[in-house]
């Protein structure tokens, strides 16, 4: 039993003080010490003993007494012991300061400690232990630099001062210079091999920090050997075991941790790790308790950060994002340097993302990325946030990087692909296919959404078969397969019988009755819809209809399916059913702009103008004017309205055109690349006669439209053709019309054929014109105006042939047959008009019939003349032939008889033949001069009118009459234009006056010619010009209507078709996104 002996003053006796049995009251000992003037080292020993026994108060009392001024006075020359006492006090207070959590008290303790050390220094400047103490104090205060210099002073004096070495090691460790720290610790150990385990702890920590885990572990184990209760070593070993992340390691680690916890339950580090462990085992209650304790016991920033992080994570996983966010924030604040502890930033980012605070979230993830620039999860999340913020480019960059970092990350490829869909379908498809490839390699089932996206992309790119395969894969098995593949014929039978067939649920009930499971999971509806769209595109309309019906049967709210059925019905011209389906769609959502637009177009088709306008307006309002389709429809409406007015009111027309232009411009302002709006604007310009501008616009739209596979825009071909036509460039116009016909209409559009014919007509290619018109008639047999036009073209052909200077009998014959045809066509029309099948004015046809008959008679004479000429030609040839034959015979005779005279005789013969030829030429000349005479005769024959002597007056009269009739004809043709498409008036209004001018001009010319020539035939020509003008105006008005119609139709269809899949896709993406977030959360 250890004891100390206090020498009794002035005697040999000593007072024995058993250290185990120190009196509870330190004053007793103090009294003895003071009374006996015991040496100061005894004071220290006793004080230390008290401290060891945990009696801090007594310890303090003795030391404070021992450092009081009286002692200084009394023991003035005992320097070392006095310093030791002061240092002990200093060390005690710095320890108090170190463990004190309240800032003010902490400061106070440090101040006290400093005072004691300073006092010690005053006694002896060079005492190393004071410096060590000071160093420790500075270290406790976190003042590494000064601590370093304090220890340095000691070590400079004594290189083997163990406490100084340890202190310095600690300083270096805290500065992060682990190898230096390690050196120092090693030195200390060499100097003092039996030092307590703590020194080895330092070594272990250094090794650990330097990544030498094995050596670190050895060091820790040694510490535990020496001191089985060393909490730090136990915790360190536990941490190392836990980090192995393997079952046995973790278990052993937890055992160490538990031991440490049992030894000292307030070690924040071990508390954190325990909390961490329980987080993974899902015992959130324990996590909270442990972390809260840890927070209470530690003041160490990083450790607290850990604790907060654990707490936050616990809340995060419980879905309490608000609280989680707060704790993450606290954790971030504690650690302050993202480099040291990045996890809370990630957590905070996730929580903020969840709460929709994208910008803060982004900045947190960016911090994570600074530390871990290759972390693919973070890259993906940042990409996702950029995408949410609409910064697609940036988003793409990050996602691309993520795919590069981890080329086996299917999710990253999928995200990338989804993002690319809107900008670059090709790249998107590649990315998505990659994702699918990765998944299939790892034998995972690609998600339905992924397959759907791939299929939709193939669809968009026109790779329909690939799309079909993907859709089928995405859909898997189900009732839909039964419906489209196995073709239960008996079910389909009555399906299309009534107008209401699409509502008929009999089929599905029957299927159910027959044991089929008619099920359609909600997440597959969109895919099924897309698939049906694809089937439509593959022209498997019946199958598509089945699928739409299935969708409606299961989900009667699915408006898009109604709309598609409506579109299919509309394409089959079943306007009534189509209307009904649209109204069903509107029942689901009465403000659905797509349905409204569809309704509008149907109303237009039914010629219900006022209603259509209102519907379009409603559609436009339903989207706050943002739906360009509705606005475009309104623009079109105005455009049609401008040209519709039968009583051409220039004012109204101008207003409508202006309005149309305004609407087109509005759409263009919203969507710079809207082809339809640009096309519309071009139309308005063309309508105003600004063909150059229009041409420029159409050309651009044309280029854009032909560059894209997904845009089907025949109208711009036609419009461009019209502009070229108006500019007189017929060959280009023809080319455009022909290409348009071939590329878009499978050559089935009679209206475009009509434009083509009109262009041929204008280019005076009569036969082409006729052939084109005949084809058009063949396509639309019930369009009688085509027949009329064909008649006119034949008439025109004949007239122009007759006007020719030179013509062969064949030509004339053909003319005659053409005229016969024309007469037949016109008479048929005339006969048909009795039945009121078409709307032509009988008189007008009569005029044509009359004229053609007249022309025919004239032609017959021509024909006779030509035939006569031909006949004579033939006779002449016959004669010549006979001559040759005769000559031959003669020559043969000669040959036989007089071979020597042969040459001379032949020459004679030749001369004779020459003379004969000349004779014939003369005859021919005579004939040539004949026609004028015969023509005059024709004329006289043809006209029953009395040819008065005053030719001039007669001409004048005739001219007036013509003017009149031409006027009346204009009225007629207005009706005619009506008839052609139940629509309105010609578009090239300005052409009308000009034609009229032309006409007058031509007539004037004719009159002048007539005056000079006295040739009555020119009157005929004049008459012809007249009927031309009729045809002229009829055609453009028809073309206008057509153009308009084409315009609206394809426009609508496009809008319809396009909008649905796109909308589908967007909803899909949304689903995707949410799932993506969920996965992120789980990270």
């Amino acid at each position, binding site marked *: 039993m250890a004891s100390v002996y206090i020498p009794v003053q002035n005697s040999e006796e000593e007072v024995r003080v058993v250290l185990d049995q120190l009196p509870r009251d330190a004053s007793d000992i103090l009294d003895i010490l003071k009374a006996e003037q015991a040496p100061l080292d005894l004071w220290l020993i006793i004080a230390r003993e008290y401290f060891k026994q945990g009696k801090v108060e007594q310890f303090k009392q003795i030391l404070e007494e021992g450092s009081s001024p009286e002692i200084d006075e009394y023991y003035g020359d005992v320097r070392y012991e006095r310093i030791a006492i002061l240092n002990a006090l200093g060390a005690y207070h710095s320890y108090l300061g170190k463990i004190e959590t309240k800032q003010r008290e902490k400061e106070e303790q440090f101040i006290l400690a400093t005072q004691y050390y300073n006092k010690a220094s005053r006694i002896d400047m060079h005492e190393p232990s004071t410096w060590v103490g000071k160093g420790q104090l500075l270290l406790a205060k976190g003042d590494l630099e000064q601590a370093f210099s304090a220890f340095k002073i000691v070590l400079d004096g004594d290189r083997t001062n163990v406490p100084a070495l340890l202190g310095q090691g600690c300083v270096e460790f805290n500065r992060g210079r682990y190898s230096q720290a390690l050196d120092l610790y090693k030195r200390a150990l060499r100097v003092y091999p039996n030092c307590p385990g703590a020194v080895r702890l330092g070594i272990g920590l250094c090794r650990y920090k330097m990544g030498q885990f094995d050596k670190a572990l050895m060091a820790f184990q040694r510490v535990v050997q020496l001191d089985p209760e060393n909490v730090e070593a136990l915790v360190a070993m536990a941490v190392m075991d836990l980090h192995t992340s393997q079952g046995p390691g973790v278990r052993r680690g937890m055992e160490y941790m538990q031991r440490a916890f049992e030894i000292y339950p307030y070690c924040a580090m071990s508390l954190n790790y325990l909390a961490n462990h329980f987080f993974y085992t899902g015992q959130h209650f324990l996590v909270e308790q442990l972390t809260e304790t840890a927070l209470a016991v530690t003041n160490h920033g990083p450790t607290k950060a850990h604790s907060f992080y654990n707490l936050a994570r616990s809340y995060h996983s419980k879905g309490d994002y608000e609280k989680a966010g707060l704790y993450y924030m606290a954790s971030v604040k504690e650690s302050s340097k993202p480099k040291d502890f990045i996890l809370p930033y990630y957590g905070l980012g996730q929580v903020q993302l969840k709460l929709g605070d994208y910008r803060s979230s982004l900045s947190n993830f960016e911090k994570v990325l600074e530390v871990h620039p290759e972390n693919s999860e973070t890259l993906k999340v940042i990409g996702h946030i950029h995408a949410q913020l609409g910064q697609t480019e940036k988003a793409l960059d990050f996602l691309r990087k993520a795919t590069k970092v981890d080329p086996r990350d299917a999710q990253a490829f999928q995200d990338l692909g989804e993002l690319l869909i809107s900008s670059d379908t090709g790249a998107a498809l590649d990315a998505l296919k990659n994702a699918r490839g990765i998944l299939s390699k790892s034998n995972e089932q690609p998600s339905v959404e992924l397959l759907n996206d791939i299929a939709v992309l193939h669809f968009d790119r026109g790779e329909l078969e690939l799309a079909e395969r993907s859709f089928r894969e995405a859909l898997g098995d189900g009732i839909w397969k039964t419906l489209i593949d196995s073709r239960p014929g008996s079910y389909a*039978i009555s399906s299309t019988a009534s107008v209401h067939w699409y509502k008929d649920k009999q089929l599905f009930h029957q299927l159910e009755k027959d044991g089929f499971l008619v099920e359609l999971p909600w997440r597959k509806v969109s895919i099924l819809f897309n698939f049906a769209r694809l089937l439509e595109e593959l022209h498997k309309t019946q199958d598509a209809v089945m699928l739409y019906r299935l969708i409606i049967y299961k989900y009667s709210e699915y408006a898009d399916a109604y709309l598609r059925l409506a579109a299919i019905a509309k394409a089959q011209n079943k306007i009534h059913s189509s209307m009904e389906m649209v109204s069903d769609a509107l029942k689901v959502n009465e403000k659905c702009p797509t349905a409204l637009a569809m309704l509008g177009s149907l109303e237009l088709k039914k010629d219900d103008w006022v209603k259509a306008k209102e519907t379009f307006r409603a559609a436009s309002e339903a989207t706050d004017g943002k739906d360009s389709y509705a606005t475009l429809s309104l623009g079109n409406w105005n455009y049609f309205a401008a040209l519709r007015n039968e009583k051409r009111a220039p004012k109204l027309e101008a207003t409508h055109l202006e309005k149309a232009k305004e609407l087109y411009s509005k759409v263009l302002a919203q969507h710079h690349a809207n082809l339809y709006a640009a096309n519309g604007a071009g139309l308005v310009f063309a309508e105003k006669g600004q063909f150059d501008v229009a041409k420029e616009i159409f050309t651009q739209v044309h280029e854009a439209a032909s560059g894209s596979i997904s845009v089907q825009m025949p109208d711009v071909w036609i419009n461009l053709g019209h502009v070229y036509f108006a500019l007189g460039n017929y060959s280009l116009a023809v080319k455009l019309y022909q290409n348009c016909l071939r590329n878009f209409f499978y*050559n089935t559009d009679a209206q475009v054929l009509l434009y083509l014919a009109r262009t041929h007509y204008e280019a005076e290619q009569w036969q082409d014109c006729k052939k084109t018109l005949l084809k058009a008639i063949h396509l639309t047999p019930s369009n009688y105006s085509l027949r009329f036009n064909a008649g006119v073209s034949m008439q025109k052909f004949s007239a122009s042939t007759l006007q020719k200077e030179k013509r062969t009998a064949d030509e004339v014959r053909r003319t005659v047959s053409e005229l016969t045809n024309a007469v037949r066509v016109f008479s048929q029309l005339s006969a048909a008009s009795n039945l009121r099948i078409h709307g032509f004015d009988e008189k007008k046809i009569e005029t044509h019939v009359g004229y053609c008959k007249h022309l025919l008679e004239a032609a017959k004479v021509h024909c006779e003349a030509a035939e006569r000429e031909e006949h004579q030609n033939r006779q002449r040839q016959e004669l010549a032939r006979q001559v040759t034959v005769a000559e031959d015979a003669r020559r043969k005779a000669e040959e036989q008889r007089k071979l020597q005279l042969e040459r001379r005789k032949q020459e004679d013969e030749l001369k004779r033949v020459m003379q004969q030829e000349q004779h014939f030429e003369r005859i021919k000349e005579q004939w040539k001069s004949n026609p004028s005479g015969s023509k005059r005769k024709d004329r006289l024959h043809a006209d029953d009118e009395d040819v008065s002597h005053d030719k001039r007056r007669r001409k004048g009269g005739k001219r007036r009459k013509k003017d009149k009739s031409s006027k009346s004809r204009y009225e007629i043709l207005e009706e005619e234009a009506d008839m052609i498409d*139940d629509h309105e008036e010609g578009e090239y209004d300005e052409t009308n006056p000009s034609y009229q001018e032309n006409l007058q001009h031509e007539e004037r010319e004719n009159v002048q010619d007539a005056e000079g020539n006295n040739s009555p035939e020119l009157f005929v020509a004049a008459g012809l010009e007249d009927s031309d003008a009729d045809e002229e105006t009829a055609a453009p008005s028809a073309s206008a209507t057509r153009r308009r119609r084409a315009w609206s139709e394809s426009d609508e269809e496009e809008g319809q078709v396009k909008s649905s899949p796109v909308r589908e896709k967007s909803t899909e993406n949304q689903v995707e996104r949410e799932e993506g977030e969920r996965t992120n959360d789980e990270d």
Partner: protein
Amino acid sequence: MKLAGVKSVERAHEESVWTVAWIPPTDSRSALILTGSLDETVKIWRPDELDPVGTNTGHCLGVVSVAAHPSGSLAASASLDSFVRVFDVDSNATIATLEAPPSEVWQMQFNPKGTILAVAGGGSASVKLWDTATWQLIDTLAIPRPEGSKPSDKTGSKKFVLSVAWSLDGRRLACGSMDGTVSVFDVARAKFLHHLEGHSMPVRSLVFSPVDARVLFTASDDTHVMLHDAEGRSPIGAMSGHASWVLSIDASPDGTAVATGSSDRTVKLWDLNMRAAVQTMSSHSDQVWGVAFRPSGDTSSRGGGRLASVSDDRNISLYNYS
């Protein structure tokens, strides 16, 4: 069932070929193919080599329809100028020229017995029946005007009759019109029976099944082919697959398949049991205006049936059907 190309003639006509029909074999010769074109000629070809046998001229404007008498000795051709020319196949002698103004002429067909020629009358909304012995007009089967329509109504043109077809037993006659309605007549009583619903776009071609007098196939611009029960009014089914108008249809002699020609430039073969297209021929480069199966009577040719198709691309194609 399968189609296999046998022979094609390029530029068989100067212009679009619009119509095709098989002339049944006679004692002295095998079956022939008859074609009509926009170039105003009618040509006769001998399969399988498609040797030109003769060219008939005399029509003005395009030839829209040809039909052959079941005996194989007579044929008729019709053109846009609304004349029907009936001629002797072998001598090309004109037997009669028919017209019934103001009625135009579109598709024509002889009845199975060969006693009547039915002609689709276009805007007259009627089918004209001609006696093949006297070449007199015996009847006009008119489609009744829808109730309530005024005479001034322009709907007249909507019932514009484009196509005709005789039933197997010759008792029924169906005609297709521009507005998509198909009308069925009782020939013996010259009575209109009913409309068949289903199409709303022009029905340019229709044919009765060669094995079942009740079954009628119709082809329409709405890209669909429909199967009707001619007596029951209700459609039996619809088949889709063409990308554009279905211009012509013919049923195979065995009654198990139909062939269609379309504006989408293809000829499709449909299996009636599967109700689906089983084959698509893309030998033509423009609208296919006519398809015709060789009638079953002819056994002189080597095995398998024959299908001929004609197109705007001026070509004639011949296929083996098996």
